[in-house]
């Protein structure tokens, strides 16, 4: 087995990837769910059948030109820690991290395509892009799917479209989503009405790593919920429209905050800097929330000479599994908090106090 960590892009490289509107849209993804016509769905198939599916799908996916340089492995060959790292990188789902024999992963070198085999469906393939690029992500995964259907016999019904294990994904099997950093709307207390109106449009808003609607680090994931009765392009266009509006609202909220509630904004940015640059013990949750305001400060020009990539890298490296990976001994949560604080202090050593104009 290849070394996963030799293969993965380093957190600093990952943080350097840029895309349109990446000040607000951290990443875009489009996922398609597909199943083979002649097998039971993964949740119902017995182990030998799942292994057979994996042995059919994994070589077919690996042989695609897009996956010429790829990491292809059965899930039972990953350590629990490596699975968790893949979750923190958003390359696999939590559900997939719990899988073992009969499930697999194919990931390309650029980390723009990730295919989970035998997650909830036989195939969950996703195209990932930095910034606001959902249309590009859709085009990429559409081509990928078209190439794959020449080799695999997908379950498709004339009326119902692509058949999926869960009826919520039926039809197109598509989930279009974007990860948004919205500290302005949170501080301006406009986030709840925005979430409500987005919900009304049939779109889901979720947090980055949960906590209901109070998303960690002011990061929100917006995605479509309905998959049947609407074409892929219509869904992509609808998401594009809604996301553009959210971006505009966030920009306006930041502008208005600077004009009318300067002290509130500078207070958050200053405190975030104070804590992150001086703490000796800090939880991953607090780190995320404070990093969010540091990121906002960088966007607002409070830290001249400091790049957003610094924060984005810390967003990753301070996650529990990423932190654990850097240390050989098994750490308790308390020990991790100490090491996390040391790491963040070290990285912020050369960042000067925020400029408040």
């Amino acid at each position, binding site marked *: 087995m290849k070394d996963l960590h030799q293969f993965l892009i380093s957190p600093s490289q990952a943080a350097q990837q840029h895309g349109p509107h990446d000040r607000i849209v951290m990443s875009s993804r489009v996922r398609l769910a597909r*199943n083979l*016509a002649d*097998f*039971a*769905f993964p*949740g*119902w198939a017995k182990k030998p059948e799942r292994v057979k599916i994996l042995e059919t799908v994994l070589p077919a996916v690996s042989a695609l030109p897009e996956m010429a340089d790829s990491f292809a492995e059965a899930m039972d060959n990953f350590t629990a820690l490596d699975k968790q790292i893949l979750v923190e990188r958003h390359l696999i789902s*939590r*559900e997939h991290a719990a899988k073992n024999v009969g499930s697999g992963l194919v990931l390309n070198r650029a980390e723009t395509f990730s295919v989970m085999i035998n997650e*909830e469906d036989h195939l969950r393939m996703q195209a990932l892009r930095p910034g606001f690029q959902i249309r590009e992500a859709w085009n990429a995964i*559409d081509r990928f*799917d*078209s190439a794959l*259907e*020449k080799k695999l016999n*997908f*379950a*498709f*019904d*004339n*009326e*119902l*479209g*692509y*058949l999926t*294990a*869960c*009826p*919520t994904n*039926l*039809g*197109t099997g598509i989930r279009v989503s974007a990860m948004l950093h919205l500290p302005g709307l949170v501080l301006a207390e406009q986030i709840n009405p925005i979430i*409500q109106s987005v*919900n*009304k449009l*049939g779109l*889901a808003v*979720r*947090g980055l*790593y*949960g*906590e*209901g609607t109070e998303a960690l680090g002011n990061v929100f994931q917006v995605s479509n*919920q*309905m*998959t*049947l*009765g*609407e*074409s*892929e*392009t*219509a869904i992509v266009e609808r998401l594009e429209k809604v996301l553009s509006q959210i971006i505009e609202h966030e920009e306006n909220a930041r502008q208005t905050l600077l004009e009318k509630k300067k002290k509130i904004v500078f207070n958050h940015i200053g405190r975030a800097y104070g804590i992150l640059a001086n703490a000796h013990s800090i939880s991953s949750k607090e780190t995320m929330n404070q990093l969010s305001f540091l990121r906002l400060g960088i966007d607002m020009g409070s830290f001249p000479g400091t790049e957003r990539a610094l924060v984005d890298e810390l967003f990753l490296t301070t996650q529990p599994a990423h932190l654990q990976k850097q240390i050989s001994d098994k750490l308790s949560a308390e020990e991790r908090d100490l090491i996390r604080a040391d790491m963040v202090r070290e990285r912020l050593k050369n960042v000067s106090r925020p400029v408040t104009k």
Partner: protein
Amino acid sequence: MQCCVCKEKPATVHLTQIVGEKMQKLDLCEDCAKAKGINDPTSFAMADLMLGLGASQELDPSAGAVEIKCVRCGFTQADFKKSGRLGCPECYQTFAEGLSGLLKTMHKGVRHIGKAPEALRKSRETGDRLKLLQKKLNKAVETEDFEAAAALRDEIKILSGAAPAKIVK
């Protein structure tokens, strides 16, 4: 207020979601909320939860009825009630009746629009075009526009091969 899942313990977790014009409400006790994964918001999706509950209502066999079982994979309604997932692609035929109501509440429509495997794309397009022409033909007949009707009938003939066009009033 009672929990709407176990119908035993008092409901302490209340959820509301608005989809289009419809408002859906759920009242759960702590244990059922936990069982449905609401304490782990990352894996929780309202739609999934609704599905589980909706499923138990939609697919419950009426009293005395024989339980339906998928001939291909042996999956039953009880299994669906438990997991909210189906057993195999064939299950969509097996449980078509129970699913249709569920799909209506869950999605924008009940017929797939969009991508299809290339092998099927052509026949799908032809089918759609035929349906449209047939509609136009019926209208032309209704309005006694026989010239247009004749042209449409010819087009349908060509498109559907040898099959004769039906003129349905």
